């Protein structure tokens, strides 16, 4: 995950509390989504950014995760994400995200 984004996630979590934060991802590949999700839960696996060794355990979802899809207006979802849902490998992204949440999410 981009170093600046790691800083932003860390600062916001300190300000608002980890229980009040949800991170929403839009990465195009399962591997990239998994890396970002791991960064905001178990810490930066590349040890490059401010979240290296910091286990925030935040709730993290991808835009194609069912939990997120069910939480928003279906018309808006279709307008904003419907096309990408057809393009992305949704199953592998969901599998990756679920696995990260099960291992590291604290909420």
């Amino acid at each position, binding site marked *: 995950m981009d170093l600046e984004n790691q800083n932003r996630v860390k600062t916001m979590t300190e300000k608002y509390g980890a229980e009040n934060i949800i991170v929403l991802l839009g990465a195009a590949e399962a591997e990239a989504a998994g890396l970002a999700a791991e960064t905001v839960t178990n810490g930066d696996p590349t040890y490059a950014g401010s979240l290296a060794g910091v286990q925030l355990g935040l709730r993290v979802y991808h835009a194609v995760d069912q939990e997120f899809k069910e939480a928003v207006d279906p018309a808006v979802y279709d307008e904003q994400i419907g096309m990408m849902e*057809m393009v992305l490998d949704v199953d592998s992204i969901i599998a990756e995200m679920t696995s990260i949440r099960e291992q590291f999410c604290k909420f």
Partner: protein
Amino acid sequence: MSYAVVKGTGYVLVHTPDMIYHNGTTQTTEKLTNPDSEYLKKLPEHIRPYEKTVNYAPNQVYIGNITPENLRQYEMPWYDKDVAEANRFGKYGEIMPQDEFIALLKISDAFDLVKLDKNFTASVKSKISNHPLFKEDAAKLKEGEELEEIEKYVKEQHAEGLYQDGKLIGCVKRAHDIDPNLNAHVLFENLVVKASGLLAFKHLVDKNNIDVAAIDYVIECSEEACGDMNQRGGGNFAKAIAEAAGAVNATGSDTRGFCAAPTHALIQAASLVQAGTYENVVVVAGGATAKLGMNGKDHVKKGMPILEDVLGGFAVLVSKNDGINPILRTDLVGRHTVGTGSSPQAVITSLVTMPLDKGGLKITDIDKYSVEMQNPDITKPAGAGDVPEANYKMIAALGVKRNELERSQLAEFGEKHGMPGWAPTQGHIPSGVPYLGFAKEDLTTGTINRAMIVGKGSLFLGRMTNLFDGVSIVMERNTGKTETAGAGISEEAVKNMIAEAMRDFASHLLKA
């Protein structure tokens, strides 16, 4: 008013093995933050020799020796296969070796900032004397300097070293003691843009029988900025390149928009020509040393050669309608506006279907989409996927949403309406424009009738806005009918219309 046409193109690559290590930001950052890294140690073993770069299929496509369709016949990965009949020169340009390009930096230098070693100068002078486009410029190389002199500039005066085969053979001096915009690093990058842009420009003129004196205006659209501390991006690469290319009757300006700039420039050029402001406008861009070896860490990790070992450049001549070459439909232009939004769906809608709707066209009415034509041999091992393929999937998915395509046709859309990517990951270089050369042929002697050129840019990298950007334009086979400006309505017709309006006005006065 008659549409402008794409009259000719020039495409060049420059093999820059030493610049990967010395000037690519992935490597220079690593040298600063982790000087003893394994990556830097392994890097030299992963640099391709010049011949391998020439024999590389995507590079042969870039200079026009293989068509994009034929590239599909080469099984991926491409880097471990040589093209049998590869050639340094192609119908659009060439793949220049580094030593000759360093000579070209010297030839492009108007301020005596480039210093080259005597022995190196002697060796490249004979090569430049034999180059079909730079024969007459060999004298500009002069005799060269003593190596000690160059070492002194590098060690004591912050000059940027120029290397060949790992050895210091020259430098670019700083042009000011304290101005950061005139330091040696910035001047080096700017001279690289100028020299590689010049190379593309010269090939454009040479390959298309163009009278260089007939060029009225030049738009440069790379991603560097030239100026001093009082005007960091003052410009003007365009005029500097025009001067170096001998375009004595041209002026010009620089257009910036990250990777989208070439398509912005193409639309501007088409509009300037269509409006009759200028007859011949050249859009040109040079390459970026900063992006050399950008994904090098992944390539080395996977035991591959560093594939980002070339600079890219291109030049396109946009001229008034000749009834032959493909027209640029300035009425079918797509724009990502401030209000568009950033979801991929909103982006593709604004760039692809918005211009189509203006012309009453369907997604399948465009025979070829030229999107970000990044070479997937480079991007896939780096985890960035196949960029053109992803774009084609998005366009097809939008087609499904618009009921213009069946869902079952999603997979085949890219094969029919797309192309495999072949351009180096030089930011603006792969963005829409690499296809213009082939498009000119496909839309004249070829079998297709309509293509769309799409350019996208990541504006947020400059930290002035979070926005993304993009523009697109439809290119179409010429019907052969040309109109002269103003011919749509005669003087007599105008007089009649005015007379009619006055009669109408007078009748209202009478009624009142």
